[in-house]
């Protein structure tokens, strides 16, 4: 089993603050973290390796200096990480990201399984997985909540609106995983420190690409941003007995015409 896991060093959207005067999000200085569902992909890759042998390699397209944090990702269960650092990363569309990841994966050589998270916490488009599968010319199994490998086939159970769908595809195949698939392990500090040597940083040129080429691939660009946060009343009652608290809240909601009392 030669597994490649795609990992994003995402903006930690839970930490984004809004400017109260413009209501726009403040995007400078937002901390980043390894994308949540990508950790599930890493955990699954580690378990598959334990069961079937083989290798686990990480590829990422990230901003400058982002390679330095990938020892955290390696420590969850990969052998090595290859991070394509570029100041355009995250600035272009999903087509550009898939294009770079595909080039990085091809440079790594043959593979059986490509894993990624079902979505990233910052972009949340769920596009890169299917785009990457198409570019690599392999089948895709998206939203897998269960995964197994038997006789050269990958079997995944997909969580869809109308049911759980079990699909099979021969390897190589791309699978996007949900956060219900497993509970990612927490590596120890020692494991994280040790993994430092396993992180390799590439530039676009190292995978045969240029900034001009990936800008050509990108076909949409953000041209406007508008804050949408609604002002909330934030009338929060604490340290009161439940019966008093709910009386106050019900009264307030009636005053604000959120609920309509019965005519007396």
């Amino acid at each position, binding site marked *: 089993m030669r597994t490649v896991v795609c990992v994003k060093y995402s903006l930690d959207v*839970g930490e984004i603050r809004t400017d109260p005067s413009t209501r726009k999000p403040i995007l400078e200085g937002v901390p980043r973290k390894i994308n949540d569902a990508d950790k599930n992909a890493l955990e699954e890759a580690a378990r598959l390796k334990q069961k079937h042998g083989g290798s686990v390699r990480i590829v990422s397209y990230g901003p400058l200096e982002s390679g330095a944090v990938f020892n955290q990702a390696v420590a969850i269960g990969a052998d090595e990480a290859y991070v394509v650092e570029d100041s355009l990363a995250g600035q272009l569309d999903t087509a550009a990201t898939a294009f770079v990841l595909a080039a990085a994966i091809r440079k790594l050589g043959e593979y059986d399984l490509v894993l990624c998270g079902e979505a990233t916490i910052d972009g949340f488009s769920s596009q890169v997985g299917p785009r990457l599968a198409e570019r690599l010319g392999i089948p895709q199994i998206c939203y897998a909540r269960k995964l197994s490998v038997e006789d050269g086939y990958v079997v995944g159970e997909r969580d869809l609106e109308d049911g759980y769908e079990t699909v*099979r595809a021969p390897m190589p195949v791309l699978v996007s995983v949900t956060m219900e698939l497993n509970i990612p392990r927490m590596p120890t500090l020692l494991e994280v420190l040790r993994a430092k040597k396993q992180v390799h940083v590439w530039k676009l040129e190292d995978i045969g690409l240029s900034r001009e080429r990936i800008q050509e691939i990108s*076909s949409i660009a953000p041209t406007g941003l508008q804050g949408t946060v609604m002002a909330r009343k934030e009338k929060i009652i604490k340290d009161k007995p*439940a019966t008093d608290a*709910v009386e106050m809240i019900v009264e307030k909601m009636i005053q604000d015409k959120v609920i309509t009392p019965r005519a007396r």
Partner: protein
Amino acid sequence: MRLMSEQPIAILVFSEDRDTMLELLAKSREKADETHSESSVAVLGEITEDEARELGSCGADRAYLMESQDLAVFNVEIYCNVLSQLISEVKPEVILVGGTRRGRELAPRLAERLGIGCVSECVDFEIEGKERVVKMQRIVYGGLALTTYTFNRKPALATISPSLFQKKTVKGREVKIVKVQAKLGTSKLSVAELRPKERSSRKLEAARVVVDAGRGVKKREDLKLLEELAEVLGGQVACSRPLAADKGWFSDWIGISGKKIRSDLCVTIGVSGSIQHKGGIRDSKAILAIDSNPDAPIFSMADYGVVGDLYEVVPALIQALKKRL
């Protein structure tokens, strides 16, 4: 295939989910009228004559039918093969794909095949000026902002969430049916089984009041308490992702990865308020949050809140509401 029509085809709609297809046709009709062009729809698999007629009354000028039995089951690769051939022939300016989970995995694969851009969960779009430049809007960062994207080539592709728009019927409006043959191609993917989920017949997206259960609700039996609250308020009970996807108490969940509600009142119970979940309830007019943790992020987006044990607060709330409503 020779499928070009005289008027430019502005918009082509596709969804494997019929309800969503008809909702998207309403939006497509509106935009086609604004831009003096045609609204069209691609239908894969067999449909009845009545169903075909309904496409016209719901807003399609033209319907491309691909009536193969092999299209009865959704296979992302086969659907991608067939749709990409149709799109290359029809040359629409905008393609709207229903944002079901199947649609959300199909659209980016299709976009990659065609070498075009794609906006996920688009909320509105324009075809602007003489150049007919396509711009689309999308909610980003878990609901903190609305971003506009401009396409530098066409067609422009978007997925649109189910229930975002409403189906509109104009009786007697006719649709031109165009039967299409396309190469299905092959797929290495095979669907072995579909275990159906029990689905609520009531649409959560249309509910006026939603009682939103979170991880603070410990046992499945406790949902009875929430049902009782929903009944008093005339609403329905839904949940956050862990209760559905992990525990299987519900078939679907509220959040960016699930359903987005637009209720008059949303009462969250034991919901801590992850950014993903908040993205699903942010369009509610009023939010009442009940949780034991005073620092839970949910309180920062609530209009009303009670910090306390839900097993004390909810019964008290039911009593208080029963007295007044």
